[in-house]
């Protein structure tokens, strides 16, 4: 294992509060200058089913899912099998549980070391309102070296609205847990970094949007995008914006377009099924050159698929889901912190280029919470280059300019009235079905994207080895991690993590690939969507391999590294 990390899973029935336990632990860890990630997993039950808090503590902010677990705190074993694919144990793992409850076969088979903690009994004995999750918090806090006072303080804040008795019970349980001597050694990573942020990718995306100027949101709830909206509802209220809960996604995207037409930067968030409903009207934004940003938090597909789990299978629809020739922007944040930058960049690009931007986040980065160094922001664009709408009455909304971008005025601007149109139109905006107008406007809408200088943020490039690992969005972390592992076994790589997917920066990408002898395209879906897309856009001079694996279990750096190593070994042999 190249990177030192500590992984802890806390599992229990839905009501047991394992997620709260994980959150408090991570917050306390953050206070002490630690770094880490919390992933939440639920069974299909709405309430009362099983859930799991999956923690990965690692000083270097490499936030992939853990490939194995150092410790599992099992408040009970009910339905543990649902998480079997995700919580991998081995002989080095520690299991903290009430030994009175029978161990699931998988745990026995893994040969994990079991430590008896009779959670129910201890919690009940400690306080009439005693809760097992607080007990577990105390126990884990001690193993991590966290002060019980910090844990109790944070728990108190979280339970501020609850009766005093309840809060007292929490403190008592935490203290009891923290006092318990447990014969188990965990490889605790170093702490002591400061200046961290604590947030989820969905919150980060919301913040990025607001900071980039979004003041209007219309949306329809959908998992796993709802919490972007829930955060933004509060945020917009404070910055003087407005959020409309629409009747459906068709209304949401059109309300967004309406607000944007009014000159107010506008945004919506959704997930696969909602994005599918929006594509007709995203095409309207493209044709009418109205700037809108759509955040799509990807989940398992197709159809309703697996709503609560992650996948990267909406790349195809994001790139190609609009009817007609409808060039637009597609971006993807690379990690939780990068959600701030990439969403903000998308908003600014949409405004500058007067088109639609689709941002592809996913459930993994969207709903995981992490401690991160202060996120980078997208510097505010210089004011849009002066665009003179010209004299009153002579305004051409869709004027053919060198850049493809025309002067955009908004209602209220005196004397530059026009009608925006999704019908093909001439420069003035009057509907036209002439070949000449059509070809020119098609070219204009394409050229303004192609000609724009996107700078260096189209991708993050690490290393300069001869083996290229190309991925997009949240896969970047797993790929980077795999590259580290490959480096240890002597394979030097070049990791290219794409942030801007459309327009694809083909020249820059080709340059970045120069000198590579072999390319691997890594993504979390079944069809190899990025792989086919890249091949369709670029002439690769070297062999290109696809590593595409659908969700919902996050991509495993180990498996990626192994697959790459195998191909290389075979190539060398033959």
């Amino acid at each position, binding site marked *: 294992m190249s990177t030192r990390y500590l992984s802890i899973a806390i599992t229990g029935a839905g009501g047991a509060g394992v997620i709260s336990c994980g959150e408090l632990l991570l917050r306390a860890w953050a206070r002490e200058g630690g770094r880490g990630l919390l992933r939440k997993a639920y069974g299909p039950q709405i309430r009362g089913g099983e859930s799991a808090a999956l923690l990965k503590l690692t000083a270097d902010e490499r936030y992939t899912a853990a490939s194995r677990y150092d410790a599992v705190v099992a408040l009970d074993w009910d339905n543990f099998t649902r998480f079997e694919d995700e919580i991998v144990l081995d002989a080095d793992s520690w299991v903290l549980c009430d030994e009175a409850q029978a161990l699931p076969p998988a745990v026995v088979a893994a040969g994990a070391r079991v430590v008896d903690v009779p959670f129910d009994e201890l919690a009940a004995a400690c306080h009439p309102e005693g809760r097992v999750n607080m007990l577990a918090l105390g126990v884990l806090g001690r193993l991590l070296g966290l002060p019980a006072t910090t844990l109790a303080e944070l728990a108190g804040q979280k339970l501020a609205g609850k009766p005093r008795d309840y809060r007292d019970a929490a403190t008592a349980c935490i203290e009891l847990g923290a006092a318990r001597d447990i014969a188990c050694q965990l490889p605790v990573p170093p702490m002591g970094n400061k200046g961290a942020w604590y947030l989820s990718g969905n919150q980060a995306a919301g913040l990025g949007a607001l900071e980039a100027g979004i003041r209007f949101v219309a949306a329809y709830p959908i998992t796993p995008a709802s919490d972007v909206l829930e955060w933004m509802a509060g945020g917009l209220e404070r910055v003087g914006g407005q959020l409309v809960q629409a009747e459906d996604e068709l209304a949401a995207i*059109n309300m967004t377009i309406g607000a944007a037409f009014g000159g107010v930067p506008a945004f919506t968030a959704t997930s696969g099924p909602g994005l599918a409903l929006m594509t007709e009207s995203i095409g309207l934004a493209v044709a009418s050159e109205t700037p809108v940003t759509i955040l799509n938090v990807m989940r398992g597909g197709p159809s309703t698929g697996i709503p609560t789990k992650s996948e990267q299978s909406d790349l195809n629809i994001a790139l190609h889901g609009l009817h007609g020739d409808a060039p637009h922007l597609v971006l993807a944040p690379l990690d939780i912190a990068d959600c701030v930058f990439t969403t903000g960049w998308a908003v600014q690009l949409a405004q500058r280029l007067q088109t639609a931007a689709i941002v592809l986040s996913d459930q993994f980065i969207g709903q995981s919470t992490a401690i991160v160094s202060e996120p980078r922001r997208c510097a505010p664009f210089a004011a849009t280059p002066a665009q003179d709408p010209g004299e009153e009455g002579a305004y051409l909304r869709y004027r053919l300019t060198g850049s493809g971008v025309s002067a955009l005025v908004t209602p209220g601007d005196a004397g530059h009235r*026009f009608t925006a149109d999704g019908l093909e139109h001439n420069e003035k905006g009057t509907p036209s079905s002439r070949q000449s107008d059509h070809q020119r406007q098609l070219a204009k809408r394409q050229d303004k994207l192609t000609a724009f200088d996107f700078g260096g943020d189209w991708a993050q490039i690490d290393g300069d080895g001869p083996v290229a690992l190309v991925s997009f969005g949240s896969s970047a972390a797993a790929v980077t991690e795999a590259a580290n592992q490959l480096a240890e076994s002597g394979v030097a790589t070049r990791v290219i993590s794409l942030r801007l997917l459309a327009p694809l920066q083909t020249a820059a990408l080709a340059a970045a690939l120069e000198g590579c002898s072999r390319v691997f395209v890594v993504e979390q879906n079944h069809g190899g969507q990025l792989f086919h897309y890249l091949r369709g856009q670029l002439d690769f001079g070297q062999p290109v391999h696809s590593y595409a694996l659908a969700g919902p279990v996050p991509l495993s750096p180990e498996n990626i590294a192994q697959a790459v190593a195998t191909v290389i070994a075979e190539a060398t042999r033959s």
Partner: protein
Amino acid sequence: MTDAIRLKAKDYKSEVKPIWCPGCGHFSVHNAITKAMAALGIDKDRTVLVSGIGCSSRLPAYVDSYGFHGVHGRGLAIAQGLKVARPDLTVLALGGDGDGFSIGGNHFIHACRRNVDITYIAMDNEVYGMTKGQASPTTPMDWDHSKLTPHGPGVRPFKPAALALASGAPWIARGYSGNPNQIAKLIAEAVEFPGFSFLHVMSQCITFCPEQTDWKAIVTESEAPPLADADEAAKQFLHEDGFQTGLLYREQRATWPPPGATAAEEGAPGKLAAAFRV
């Protein structure tokens, strides 16, 4: 309006020539809108006409104001988003019976319920004019002129006023393309009404429903004051033959969003970011 010179109706027409068939009822609505704009002395630069797709929905380009010709059935959503974002503008949404009651039906009932302060003019010719004459949700059951429904749609038509009322619309009126002056008067009232105003205009399609010239004979003009009682209105709307014109129903209720909802807090974006610091 700051302009010293009072504009006439024709000053509100744009230079684009309508594509409508000669005799189309939509010309009346076009005239009525510009008349109402002149009567209100409305500021062209602060007015937006939003529409979907259909013959009727082509109207915005013919008025010298801002306009948005959207996609089929979604004009009301665009209009609401615009008005919520820009409460300072006067926003009118327009479209046909197909656009508004068929594909756009969900936005129609939700717009009635939401009560954003816009005016919605549905130009109802009981047919899909633009796509060459198929039945719409207001087409008579036995209208058998479309090859798509050769024996007539066979389904009872919607009564748009009844639907609007049941959905919560606070202001409901009806006009007829044979009487553009009345439409103009109603539009002016609708624009001034604080809330969602629904103006249902019977606007004949001379090409695909030439029989609609008979409407002339059966239209009645209501002199009675509008009903303010939902029961009475419901009773009337469910039974009426659909040809009583005038302001039919008016009720005051809170619009959405509540006024003053968008006051910004001092230093807000920074505070939002700060909350994420450990």
